[in-house]
C-alpha cells in the first residue's frame, strides 16, 4: 500500500537541496543547520526529484535504469519520499 499518489510531483522544500559531496564521495541533503547523508539508493531517487517529474515517472525511470521489478522500486521510492515529506525536506 503506497502513501503517495502516483501523479503527485515532489520537489525540495525551500532551504533544502541535494548535492554531491565530491570531497567525501557521498550525496548529501542540505537543510537548515544540518546535512543528511543520502545513501546510494536514496541519492538515485532524489536526483530525479526536480519539481517536474511525478512519482510514477520516477519509478518508471528507476525501473528502466536498474532493470528491477517495478513493484520493488515503487515500494522503496514511496517509503523514502513519504519519510522526507513528513520531515518537510520535500513538498508535494
Amino acid at each position: 500500500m503506497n502513501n503517495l499518489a502516483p501523479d503527485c510531483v515532489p520537489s525540495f522544500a525551500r532551504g533544502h537541496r541535494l548535492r554531491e559531496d565530491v570531497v567525501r564521495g557521498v550525496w548529501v541533503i542540505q537543510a537548515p543547520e544540518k546535512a543528511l547523508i543520502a545513501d546510494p539508493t536514496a541519492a538515485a531517487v532524489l536526483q530525479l526529484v526536480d519539481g517536474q517529474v511525478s512519482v510514477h515517472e520516477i519509478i518508471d525511470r528507476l525501473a528502466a535504469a536498474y532493470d528491477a521489478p517495478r513493484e520493488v522500486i515503487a515500494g522503496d521510492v514511496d517509503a523514502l519520499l513519504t519519510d522526507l515529506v513528513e520531515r518537510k525536506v520535500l513538498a508535494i
Partner: protein
Amino acid sequence: MSTPSPPMSLLAELTHRCPLACPYCSNPLELERRTAELDTATWKRVLDEAAALGVLQAHFSGGEPMARSDLVELVAHARSRDLYTNLITSGVMLDATRLQALAEAGLDHVQLSFQDVDEAGAERIGGLRGAQAKKLTAARLVAAEGIPLTLNFVVHRLNVERVPAMITLARELGASRVEIAHTQYYGWGLKNRGALLPTREQLEEATAAVEAARRAYGPTLVIDYVTPDYYADQPKPCMGGWGQRFVNISPSGRVLPCHAAETIPGVIFPNVRDESLSAIWNDAPLFTLFRGTEWMPEPCRSCALKETDWGGCRCQALALTGDAANTDPVCSLSPFHNRVKAAVEEQRENEFLYRRYENIPEFS
C-alpha cells in the same frame, strides 16, 4: 600524520561591527575594527578554498553581517560554489529591499536573534532602542518570502523565565526552528557571568518548558536546546572536537577552531591573507595543537569518553584553570571541577558590561 578530515562548516565573521551591544556576545573582547576587515575579493577566495576543501555550509555572521555592503555578493558567490548559505543576523538592518536581494542571491536560511520576548528586557540586553519592533518586522519579511527561519534566543538569568513565550513567538512568526541557547561563558559572557548565570532552579524550569513544548509541537517546530555546562558533570564535545568539523574566520582573516580561540596564549594565529585555508586547516600549529587525543592529559587520556567529548572545551579550560591543555573543569573528574561548582554558588550581580568598542578591557 595523515591528512585530517575536512571541515563541514565555515563561520564567516564578516565584521565585528554591530548596532547591538549584547553582554554575552561570542566575539572576542578585543573587537576588530573596520579598517582591519578582509575585502570582498579575499572573502570570495576564502569561499572558493572552503568549498574545495570540503566545507558544505557557509554561515555569514558577525558582529552584524548586514553591516557589510558586499553581503549579497558574498552569498551569491557561496551559492555559485554550491555552499549552503545561512545568514545569522540581529535583523535590525533588514528591510524588504535587502531581503529580496538576498533571496535572489540564493540565501538558503536565516537565523534571526532575539534578546527576549519582553521589549524592555530585550532592549536592555541589546542596548538599542527600537530594536524589537525591527526584529519582528524582519521575521515577518523572512517568513513572507518563504526562506526557512530559525529564531535564536540566548537565555540567561534575566530572561530565562520567558522560555515558554519565546517558543510561542517562534511559532507565531512562522519559524520552523527555534534555538534556546543558554549563554556560554567565554569572553564577554565570562566578564558578565555574575549577572547572567541562571540558578539551578531556573535551569530546571527552562529545561522542563522546552520538553513540554517539544511534546506539544512535535516535528512542526524543531527546538534546539543548549544548556549552560556549569551545571553539568560531563563536558560538551566542544565544536565536535578541535579542528575536526568547524572553522571560524575572523573579520581580519584569522582562521580559528572556535570563536574564543584567540584567548589561547603562545601560538600564532594563522591568517587567510598569508596562507591557503587548506594549508592552515591541515597543518597550522593552532589546529594541530588540540586535534585528536594525543595532546590529552589525565584524566582524559585514559578515559573511555575521550572520543565522545574530546576533553571538552579548550577555551573554558584556559579561562577557568589557566591552562588550555587541562581537562575542561566542567568534568567531575577534573581536579579543578570545584571552580565550576563555586561559580554557580556565587552571589549574582545586577550590572553588566555592554559589548562595545569603548568597553574593550585594557590589556597591559
